[in-house]
């Protein structure tokens, strides 16, 4: 199997589960940001609990190497904030916008067109960003466990407890 076929099959399964979890809906995305409906956080954190255990197991047995993204402070702060502004207004993130079209919510096409345009603008501005925002402070490719000086399994247990605690809170408050 080539990488394209594998990507397509994985994507179909991913899209299926995103749709079943109801996270492709504008109302769910905005609902999370209005702190009224935490479906998206329940979905993401459930995936993360299962995923972090499996991925660290695969890493420990030497089957894979982790691929941390760089903790570039300017990039994450400025880029993260800009993303948040756009996310709130459009009501979708990149992956869910595509899935929403699959569900018939064709208004997500405007968000997709905007994001393709945004990518084209970014490509033009890249030399400028490279000398400014991206050059401020590079924290390297590190994990939270490294920074805290904790064994990764200890951190995985702590975070799992925190995430499950959030689930209990969400259910109690009917969020």
């Amino acid at each position: 199997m080539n990488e394209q076929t594998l990507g397509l099959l994985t994507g179909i399964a991913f899209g299926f589960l995103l749709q079943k979890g109801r996270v492709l809906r504008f109302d769910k995305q905005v609902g999370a940001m209005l702190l009224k409906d935490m479906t998206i956080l329940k979905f993401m954190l459930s995936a993360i609990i299962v995923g972090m255990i499996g991925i660290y197991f695969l890493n420990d047995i030497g089957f894979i190497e982790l691929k941390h993204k760089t903790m570039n402070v300017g990039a994450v702060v400025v880029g993260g904030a800009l993303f948040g502004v756009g996310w709130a207004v459009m009501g979708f993130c990149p992956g869910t916008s595509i899935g929403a079209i699959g569900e018939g919510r064709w208004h997500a096409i405007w968000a997709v067109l905007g994001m393709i345009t945004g990518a084209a603008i970014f490509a033009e501005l890249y030399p400028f960003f490279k000398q400014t925002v991206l050059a401020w402070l590079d924290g390297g490719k590190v994990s939270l466990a490294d920074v805290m000086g904790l064994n990764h399994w200890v951190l995985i247990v702590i975070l799992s407890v925190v995430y499950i605690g959030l689930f209990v809170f969400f259910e109690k408050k009917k969020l």
Partner: protein
Amino acid sequence: MNSKTSDGGWSPYLAGALVGVLAILSVIATTNITGKTSFLGASTTFVRAAGFLESSVATAHVDQNEYFKKEKVKIDWQFMLVLGVLIGAFFSSISEKSFKLEAVPPTWAERFGANVPLRAFWAFAGGVVAMIGARLADGCPSGHGLSGLMQLSLSGFAALAFFFGTGVLVANFVYRRRAS
């Protein structure tokens, strides 16, 4: 805790946990089959889509652009993954009969009316800003959020906090105060 939600969907805990399983299987499959470990992500595909569209009118310009050279304009694993999400969501919604052609999101229509050009304008503008942000941050809620937090990446925690923190502030400004 019910396995089904009132809108006929699956429990988000169940669907989410299955995405966790999928992420693990996907890491194993990409490592074994392509020889290169790939984590779930989506936003780089928008760069490649922009590259393809632009190169149909200005090939040389795209060929010379530093960022397009860095990210490589090609149909790769992630590009097909994003296309797969569209197909998977389509079949899932058709099979459970929740597929619905919708011109304006219901929550948006409640606040701002069912005016299509108005929604199109803001969705487009939001998309432009969000993608400039995602490319600066080098990821979106899939790449930084899901894949980053699964790997305990410091950048993932920081990015998700900024995504969500700003999102909460702006959403409360846009959808609450302007409610009229």
